């Protein structure tokens, strides 16, 4: 199997997995427990950022699908 762009595919897998994990963090942790550098962090707030989690999951899955196609056989034109 010929990989078209191994570096790009590798980066997409890493970023995709990180975003899927981030989605779980958004769903599991209230806003005050999120790291301060993460969008949605709010001191003293018990709100769960469900929508941030869905957005993170969507982008993560998109990157994983991109990587999946990048590592597939090149389709004839």
């Amino acid at each position, binding site marked *: 199997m010929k990989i078209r762009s191994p570096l790009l595919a590798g980066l997409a897998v890493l970023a995709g997995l990180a975003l899927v994990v981030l989605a779980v963090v958004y769903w599991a942790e209230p806003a005050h427990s999120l790291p301060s550098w993460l969008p949605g962090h709010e001191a003293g707030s018990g709100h769960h950022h469900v*929508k941030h989690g869905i957005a993170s999951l969507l982008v993560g899955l998109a990157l994983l699908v991109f990587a999946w196609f990048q590592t597939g056989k090149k389709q004839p034109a």
Partner: protein
Amino acid sequence: MIVASLISYGQAVVLGLLQGFSELFPISSLGHSVILPKLLGWNIHQNDPYFLSFLVATHLATAIVLFVFFWRDWVRILHGLGRSLRDRGIAADDYDAKLGWLLVVGTIPAGILGLLLEHQLRKIFASPESAAIFLALNGGLLYGAELLRRRAPETDSDDDVRIAKQVGFPQAFGVGAAQALALIPGFSRSGATMGGGLLVGLSNKDAARFAFLLATPIIGAAAVLKLPELFGHQGDGVRGQALVGSLCSAVTAYLAVRFLLRFFETNRLTPFALYCAAAGAVCAAVIPFS
């Protein structure tokens, strides 16, 4: 119970009928649902939780109608997506797979922008005055898209093949992102996607078809995401009205999609552009005194 009088069954019928056709006509359903209650003197506000719950139900009905209307197309598209995932690539002659991924690429930016910005934009722009102004601007956007349209030669008789050949992934991303404009009451989601389709070289008919296919997952997902609100305490007192509104919305959505697919075989966005510009201007002038 106080909430029982928040929205009457008569209002539910009017708003449901309005939602069904204005969601698919390029005239902004959100804008109309903000402006109409104000013009009729109804005490209904866009950001009231019970009204949001009502809108969730009517949007879900519209999405179901679209999905059923294009059922055969969705089956082909989903098979195409499955084939491309299995083969880890899109075959040059697999137009169903290409169209499927165009819809995915077009849905992602609108979905993410919607998830992140919907609440803030709705809070800022929920007034009937701003909706009227944006409705007039929506008219300008539709007219501009007709003026600036690219005309590509029509080489295939199959609608989806033409769309798959004409639209590339960057264009699908752009058309999809344009849908986020509809988060501002007054701008039309279907208008933005139809206008975007014209700019990338689709005919009016193909642009409308692409817009309706693109609409189904985004409207459906937004409605499903908020469905718990309808069945939670925010839906208390409006579930019956929401059901009636949804049925009305389903009927007009079905009629609208049938009408528009025929209309755009020979017609353009121009009448809707003129309507939006005129209605927006009149409403902007009248609302401050109503």
